[in-house]
């Protein structure tokens, strides 16, 4: 189940990138390496492998997960109520302006306004957050 969702989302990202490539004049694919560098901004609070003591919930397996659903993390009521499922589109909206997308959530991050940077970050997350155990 998890695998299908994760892979499905990855496929969606790939499609988006292709769509962008075929419909705009400046051809550009999302850059995973740049996304990895951008992730440094997230790494103070989020792990990719569910180890260590972090202030934010782990992002391992986040894609396809319902927002606010990890049992061992104390989320804000706003996050739990949000009814968001994390995919490329919702992560993009959230990272663009966290408080606008889910008002009252507790993530202490101002957001990334640059669309290209968000694409790169999401491409990185799609690879780096895969929950290999559930495959």
């Amino acid at each position: 189940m998890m695998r299908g969702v994760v892979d499905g989302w990855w496929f969606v990202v790939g499609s988006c990138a292709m769509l962008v490539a075929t419909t705009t004049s400046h051809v550009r694919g999302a850059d995973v390496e740049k996304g990895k560098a951008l992730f440094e901004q997230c790494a103070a609070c989020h792990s990719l492998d569910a180890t260590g003591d972090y202030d934010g919930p782990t992002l391992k397996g986040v894609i396809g997960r319902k927002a606010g659903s990890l049992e061992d993390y104390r989320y804000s009521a706003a996050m739990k109520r949000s009814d968001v499922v994390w995919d490329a589109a919702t992560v993009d909206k959230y990272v663009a302006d966290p408080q606008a997308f889910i008002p009252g959530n507790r993530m202490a991050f101002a957001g990334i306004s640059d669309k290209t940077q968000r694409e790169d970050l999401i491409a990185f997350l799609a690879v780096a957050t895969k929950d290999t155990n559930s495959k």
Partner: protein
Amino acid sequence: MATRLREVDVVIVGLGWTGGILAKELSEAGMRVVALERGGMRSTNPDFAIPLIRDELKYAVRNALMQNPARDTLTFRHSPSEPSLPMRQLGSFLPGEGLGGAGVHWNGVTWRWTGIDHAARSYYEQRHGKSFIPADMPIQDWPMTYAELEPYYDKFERTAGVSGKAGNIRGTKQPGGNFFEQSRDRDYPLPALEPSYSQVLFNDATAHMGYHPFPRPCANASRAYTNPDGSRLGACVYCGHCERFGCEANAKGSPHITVIPKAMAQPTFELRTHSWVTKVMLDSTKKKAIGVAYTDVSNGQEYEQPAAIVALCAYAINNVHLMLLSSIGTPYDATTQKGIVGKNYCYQPGGGGVTLFFEDKIFNPFMATGAFGIAIDDFHANDQFDRAAMGALGGATINVGQSNGRPIGYRPVPAGTPRWGAEWKKATAKWYLRAMNIGVTASNMPNRYNAYDLDPTYKNVFGQPLLRLTYNFLENDKKVIAYVGQKASEIARSLNPTSMTGPGTLGDYNIVPYQSTHNTGGAIMGSSPGNSAVNKYLQSWDVPNVFVVGASAFPHNSAYNPTGPVGALAYWTADAIKKRYRQRPGLMT
């Protein structure tokens, strides 16, 4: 009846920056360490998570992270001729309580003190002659040079994630940094933060006037950062809730996210919260500490914790209090000028600053960090600045920060505005966005009468005498504020504000309004037992297995904030314990 616990190698009293640094360094070296913290446990999540941490009333007005003065406080008087009275509400300064101590609720300004600070008496005697130093001003050199402490300043800057711009790397001046700073081995770990509009104006105006503006070093991370210990700091979001708050983004260098978790990962370390140390226990010779007595304030149970080393790492004020309560060293007597413990209390005179109001400028004061700022050091670190013209020792930095635009506390209005009512409301709405401040932060030289001792009348919740503070601003302070305040005023006028208030003149010290939590001295360091309570390793001359770490060791107060050298000295002391004292206990020379 107190329960006697099993002996450990080190007992640490207070777990803020200094206690945290010692806890990490000594437990990692394999020593068995117990830390006793009188307050509770704290962690960023959930304690400092938004939105609850943005409660200005709870944290900034009602001081949720601070010492409770109903349980313990100090008494105050201006001079020995006045009766002393207890400070029943916090005001002038805010000692913290709880894991991380003041390192949680500080703003983050992180200086290395100047060469003049490190060798105060030598500098003034050499440049101005012995007679320039007033007879009642007991200034003295630090027992270690700036160069000796440099690697430890560096270590603390790396730990705390300090953002800044070097001005002098290995003797080569660096454009954009502090022209007057001492040589440093390398730049800050993080680049300076983005300046505010007010800081840009100040930078350009002071550069135009021939001064040397530079970004003030601060432990507000300009970008995400992993420190050498692997502790992760987030990037500052300029939320304007540093001082009196914990940081929700882990962007403010704080012990609870750096050194303390590293200590807690060691099997040789144990933390006990709600553990209030009432006394250092000495043996019958009074030359050796055998441990500490403490009370678990959550249930009233009393304990004795034996230890081979006692490290006093409480707030500077409380370190001195514990020494006096425990009869470590000879109490200072201002009348006879005999004794040591309690002398050279210093603070931070203010009042030289200027607030500027502009009809045509918008400053967005809520886009703020506790410590970022542009400063000039031409009247402080500058060893060519002619203090004879000022007629006083020391000096002051002139700064533009922008620490907050919080709705309750931040209400700048021009002179002549009513204090309340419709006119005040109109003015505060109009000028909230249109005001900026140029601050003057002055040094404070010691005076024979500015000192601590034990109060003969008032007692704390444990029945122990309160610490008594005798303090006032003096002629030297008034001259510094008048002189540097005038310079700040000239800079302000060059910006052509619509109107401006200040600079004020310095009157008597008032313990009621908040000024700064920069209380220094009382257990000062020096070259001999005749001039100091602790030696160059912050080791008590009288009871050598007691270390007293923190700003209590400063023989005077700089115009710089204290936390840079406080952190550096903690690493310096930890190193001396690990590498020397541990092998051969006793007084280190």
